[in-house]
């Protein structure tokens, strides 16, 4: 009876720290799901849309150069309209991917900081729902911008999809402002926060993920600094100069052909420049993103109900994918599509590891609920017996 009582107490304490439909559980599961959704969407986008879209942009730019050659100003304008549409298609998908992942991070970070946020559970739950709702509505709205356009819009340059996306952003801002107020109240309060398993964990998987995540973020910082110092300004100058060379060559160069040799060379160089720029930005952002997710996954190890062996495996898989994707993305400059394929495999490794960890978290919550119900039954039975 004493053992049953102590088990019931332990289960009750754990269930109280991570209650069913509680704010913290919503933030952990919602955050992981948003990150996973954003990553899967990004992988699908990279495989099926990114490269064909870049080819179409190149073709439209070549069409604009040919139109300049033939004195067809309207045709040149139409080519740039097409390029605008293609860039919007790409840009909205990149934004949807990045924002979904960003909101996933925020939700998970707030779950980690949860004990320091001094608000009632109901208020925290309301704010968590707002944040997750904003994290879904904003990326869905951004995704729809390209398809909805300005149809039935009351505004000159902003369509309904943008309005919905902005409303999603407002939900997230309101939620974070509420959490910030709770953090501020926690700071002002003299009462110490409760001890928390997430911040105390020292398991192998947790330590490896925290160390790996820190190193990935540091590598991302250094790569970003190198890119900004060496490449960014040079690429901006090249972008302008190559477009100028295309226009001038098409307009002024003598000789036959729709695309003069100098304009053709500038077109090729422009395509290479765009690839170089996109690849370096993608490597920089992904290495930092994966560093952050490794840090957060490190925190959540106490909530991953898997055997120690599987926890270690998923940690190694996550870090392997986190290094593979950015390195392979950078290697695309030299090795082309095969490296792109390796990068996609890296993304798939990250997705598989996070799906494995999410399964562990869901198992943990199920187990916790089972214990809590059993504990309630034990307590209820005892009380009944006493009566």
């Amino acid at each position, binding site marked *: 009876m004493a053992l049953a009582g102590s088990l019931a107490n332990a289960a009750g304490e754990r269930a109280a720290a991570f209650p069913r439909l509680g704010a913290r559980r919503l933030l952990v599961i919602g955050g992981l799901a948003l990150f996973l959704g954003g990553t899967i969407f990004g992988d699908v986008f990279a495989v099926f849309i990114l490269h064909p879209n870049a080819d179409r942009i190149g073709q439209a730019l070549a069409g604009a150069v040919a139109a300049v050659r033939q004195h067809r100003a309207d045709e040149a304008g139409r080519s740039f309209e097409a390029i605008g549409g293609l860039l919007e298609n790409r840009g909205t998908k990149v934004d949807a991917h990045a924002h979904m992942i960003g909101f996933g991070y925020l939700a998970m970070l707030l779950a980690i900081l949860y004990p320091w946020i001094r608000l009632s559970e109901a208020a925290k739950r309301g704010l968590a729902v707002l944040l997750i709702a904003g994290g879904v509505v904003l990326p869905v709205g951004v995704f729809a911008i390209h398809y909805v356009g300005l149809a039935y819009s009351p505004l000159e340059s902003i369509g309904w999809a943008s309005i919905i996306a*902005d409303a999603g952003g407002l939900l*997230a801002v309101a939620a974070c402002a509420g959490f*910030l107020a709770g953090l501020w109240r926690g700071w002002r309060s003299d009462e110490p926060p409760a001890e928390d398993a997430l911040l105390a964990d020292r398991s192998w998987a947790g330590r490896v993920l925290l160390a790996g995540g820190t190193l990935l973020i540091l590598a991302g910082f250094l790569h970003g600094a190198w890119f900004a110092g060496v490449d960014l300004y040079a690429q901006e100058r090249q972008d302008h100069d190559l*477009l100028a060379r295309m226009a001038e060559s098409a307009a002024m160069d003598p000789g036959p052909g729709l695309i003069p040799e100098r304009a053709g060379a500038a077109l090729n160089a422009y395509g290479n420049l765009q690839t170089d720029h996109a690849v370096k930005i993608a490597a920089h952002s992904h290495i930092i993103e994966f560093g952050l997710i490794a840090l957060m996954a490190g925190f959540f190890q106490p909530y991953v109900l898997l055997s120690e062996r599987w926890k270690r495996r998923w940690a190694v898989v996550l870090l392997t994918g986190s290094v593979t994707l950015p390195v392979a993305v950078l290697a695309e400059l030299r090795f082309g599509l095969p490296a792109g394929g390796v990068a996609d495999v890296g993304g798939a490794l990250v997705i598989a590891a996070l799906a494995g960890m999410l399964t562990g978290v869901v198992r943990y919550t199920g187990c916790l609920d089972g214990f809590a119900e059993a504990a309630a039954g034990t307590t209820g039975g005892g009380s009944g017996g006493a009566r």
Partner: protein
Amino acid sequence: MKRSQQVLAIAGLALAVWAMCYGFYYAVWVEHQTLDHIGGALAGAFQHASARDMAGARAGLDDYARAKYVYTREVDAHSHWIGLAMVLLALAALWNRLGYGESARRLVAGALIAGAYGFPLGVLLQNHLAAPAGQGIAIGAAGLLIAGFGAIAFGFARGS
């Protein structure tokens, strides 16, 4: 919870709220108009070239390059503010594992906060100040961030 840890957590979440407010303002009042401007300037440049008006084409391309330069920095400021806010929040949670005393922790926290707020601000200011001034702020703040993060990595290695 130590004071440096509290300051880092609050500064991180405040930066996230600020970054989202800036992103909201930018998306509603600036971004669509800026993208239309960039596309219009580039299309106009090639249309001038079609008419063999090369001075007009060059002016259009200069306008395009300037608008794109400004747009890149505005978007970069938003994305770096939010990204660095999340790094501050994550580090706040890990703060107890740093192998430093409170005074050293305050120094590291100060460097990280100044870097996280200052780096995107420097990027953004490149649109409004002479480029070297904005770059100087961005480089100084990035240096603080890298030094702070290096100190954190060393502090984790020393352990709590």
